[in-house]
């Protein structure tokens, strides 16, 4: 990618210019120094913020995986994904309070309710995402690549307004049911159960996804389709069904993220999906788009960066600048290392 700077276009890859690397290194060193100073000055805050960052990182990871799955198979940035996530949060509120009568202080009765809500929301979002693919992306599969990207923006706006029409323009409160008692509290660093539950739900979902993609027949079909659509069709793989399935999985992950977000943050608003979706997309690009572990790593890092930026005391830019920082990272990554930290999944590498 970097080689293309010579517009004449020599086919072989030129060595990366050293000022770029230097610039990157300086940035990383400054970041480390800044973190270290913060750690020394206020260790309690530092670890608190670290734990918060990991928790938000988990939610980002679930959303980022959806971007990465879809990108891996269609090379399409599914702008509507973040809004599917937002609808997931709204589904959560409706399902859990209206269907199951979830409210605060039910003790362990919340466990089956949360589980049932999770399953229902994942299913609903998965089906929604697959339907979006069917309506908005499949007819344009042979069109220029920018056409489905444009429809994706359109769909994103439509879903946003569905959320607006459904739940109104204000923050919708979700029941605050995760216990806030501490798992542990060491030297002023508190780790609440609500944070642990997010991780406890995220990790099995991630393992399930990995198993699905790596070990099952359907997963194999997905990987094959991602590598070469025509060849997999020739091998007898139903490409359309595989793509639908991928969208279903991606939507289900967004739904899971929606459940966690709604119950952890306890508010949802119609326009949050797009913003969070962009952050999650940044995470996916950060880790290397198309690369599943990369998406998780990128999401955790973005979650940490966001938390450090908003929570640390010494010379942190503060939450006013979060989006600017995240998007600067996105731009820097795309410009200097478009393959991301772990490398984009290549057609050869599966």
């Amino acid at each position, binding site marked *: *990618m970097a*080689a293309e700077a010579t517009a004449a276009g020599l086919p072989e890859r030129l060595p990366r210019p050293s000022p770029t690397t230097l610039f990157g290194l300086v940035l990383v060193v400054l970041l480390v120094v800044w973190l270290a100073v913060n750690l020394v000055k206020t260790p309690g805050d530092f670890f608190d913020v670290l734990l918060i960052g990991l928790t938000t990182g988990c939610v980002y990871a679930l959303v980022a995986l959806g971007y990465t799955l879809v990108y891996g198979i269609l090379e399409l940035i599914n702008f509507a994904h973040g809004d599917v996530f937002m609808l997931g949060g709204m589904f959560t509120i409706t399902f859990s309070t209206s269907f199951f009568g979830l409210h605060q202080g039910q003790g362990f009765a919340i466990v089956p309710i949360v589980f049932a809500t999770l399953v229902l929301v994942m299913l609903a979002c998965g089906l929604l995402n697959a339907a979006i693919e069917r309506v908005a992306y499949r007819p344009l599969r042979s069109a220029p690549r920018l*056409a489905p990207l444009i429809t994706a923006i359109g769909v994103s706006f439509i879903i946003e307004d569905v959320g607006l029409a459904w739940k109104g323009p204000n923050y919708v409160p979700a029941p605050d049911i995760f216990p806030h008692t501490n798992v542990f509290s060491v030297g002023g660093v508190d780790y609440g159960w609500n944070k642990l539950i997010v991780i406890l739900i995220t990790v099995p979902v991630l393992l399930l996804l990995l198993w699905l993609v790596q070990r099952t027949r359907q997963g194999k079909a997905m990987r094959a389709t991602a590598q070469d659509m025509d060849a997999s069709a020739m091998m007898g793989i139903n490409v359309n069904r595989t793509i639908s399935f991928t969208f279903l999985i991606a939507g289900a992950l967004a739904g899971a993220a929606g459940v966690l977000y709604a119950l952890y943050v306890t508010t949802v608003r119609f326009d949050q999906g797009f913003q969070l979706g962009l952050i999650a997309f940044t995470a996916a690009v950060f880790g290397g788009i198309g690369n599943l572990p990369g998406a998780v790593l990128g999401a955790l890092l973005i979650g940490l960066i966001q938390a450090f930026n908003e929570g640390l005391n010494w010379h942190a830019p503060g939450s006013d600048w979060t989006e600017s920082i995240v998007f600067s990272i996105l731009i820097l990554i795309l410009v200097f290392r478009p393959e991301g930290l772990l490398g984009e999944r290549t057609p050869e590498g599966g």
Partner: protein
Amino acid sequence: MTTPAGGTPPASDPAHGDEIGLRNQIRARWHALPELTRAGISIGLFVGLSILFFFVDHALAYGTLTITALFWIRRLPPVPYRLAAQVALVVIYLIAEPRSVGYVLAVGFAMTWVPQRYRTYTYPAAGLALAVLYPFYQDRLFTVPVFGVWPDVATGVYMLVFVMMAVGLNIVVGYAGLLDLGYVAFYATGAYTAAWFASLQFPHTTWHFGAVGIDPHLAGIHVTIWLLLLVAGVFTALSGIIIGLPTLRLRGDYLAIVTLGFGEILPQVARNGDSLFGFNLTNGPNGITPLDSLGFGHRLSSLTGGFLPANYLSCCSAKVLGHQIQSTDLFFWTALVLLMFTIFCSLRLQYSRLGRAWIAIREDETAAAAMGIPLMRTKTWAYASGAFFGGIAGAYYATFKSATFPGDFFFNISVFILCMVILGGMGNIWGVIVGASFLAYLNQEGLANTGAWINSNIHVGGWHPNLDVPLYASGIYGVIILVVMLFRPEGLIPSRRRAAELHEGVHDEPLYDTASAGA
């Protein structure tokens, strides 16, 4: 007014079977019908339309009937008094219906006289004439069903500014095929450039250069807006180049994301820019207001005998054609001049060497590079030219509003402008103008009017809708984008070339794929 009769022979002989596209097929079928049937159908249509119009506005109905008559006089063999008959018809109509619609339709009649080969200029000229005269007849226009009254002149300025931006974005998206999701960044850059150099924003510096309508000892930098429009354009073009140089080598969808990133960062910088390391650059969420007014200054004003106003805001006592000229009208005409400039540049660029290079890159980047087109330089030029007009539009609109706020530069605006380009027809400047004016009107007045109409006129059983239609503006644009991309990706008034690309599909694979280069 589309007419099935057409009144003119078709551009290409239908017998040749050159019937690509729905429009040509319909045209060929139409001309295959017997002459009498055609006459019957078209007269019937016109009369039906006139009857329909009768319920809306009498002038419109009479006008339509008059047009019908004119068309059929035209089809007569060249008898000696044909022209006289036409003129007589128009004169009778104008005397009978002196209201504004008469003037509107007079231009329509003019078009029926113009020979085929001058038609290219007639439509734009007629459109321009209608636009220039708009402030004079706007308040006398009839009420459109559902949409309500015609947009007022201030909305007209808004529409013109957005048309200008859409034409600028069309250079990037339509000509060069680069998806730019952060066009609002250029708009913001232009607006802030104007605001910095024509307001009280920097009170520690006092520097005046041709500013009008303010105390010459007022603190802050005050440069004349005319110069600032140019400065804003150039500055925005430069920032376009700076943004473009590192990012334009990315492939299409990544480029879209990067531009989106810039489009998100810039408003945030504007919002937080009231203490950048202690320096108040943008005055934060309060925005910069007021800005200096536009005007030509007293010397130019007196030199032209008061034709050029000294200051737009404190101008105008003149009454022309029974219409009291207002400062909004002046802003409207100035915007029109700027738009003309934009359209002129855009048209000249389209088939220039650079424009052809853009089309080549859009259709096949690899082939274009192989033909010796410098990819980076050409794309950067597209970016810079698009940014230039976005900057001018932003600066002008900030001057018109006399304010600039960070809240004006949301991502929605980028998509809104993109929607204009897509709806009208990517790559075709006339389509973009139509699409942009319509959507800008919808955004400013149309949606509110339509919503009010729906709320007061639609009852399903006992259900009365109470919709806040403008609230759902972005969703409506989403539907427009989706429907247009799925069913008519070339837009309402397509450029032929773009339509062919979108239907047949082109290989827009870049020279280097990150997938293979990054491995």
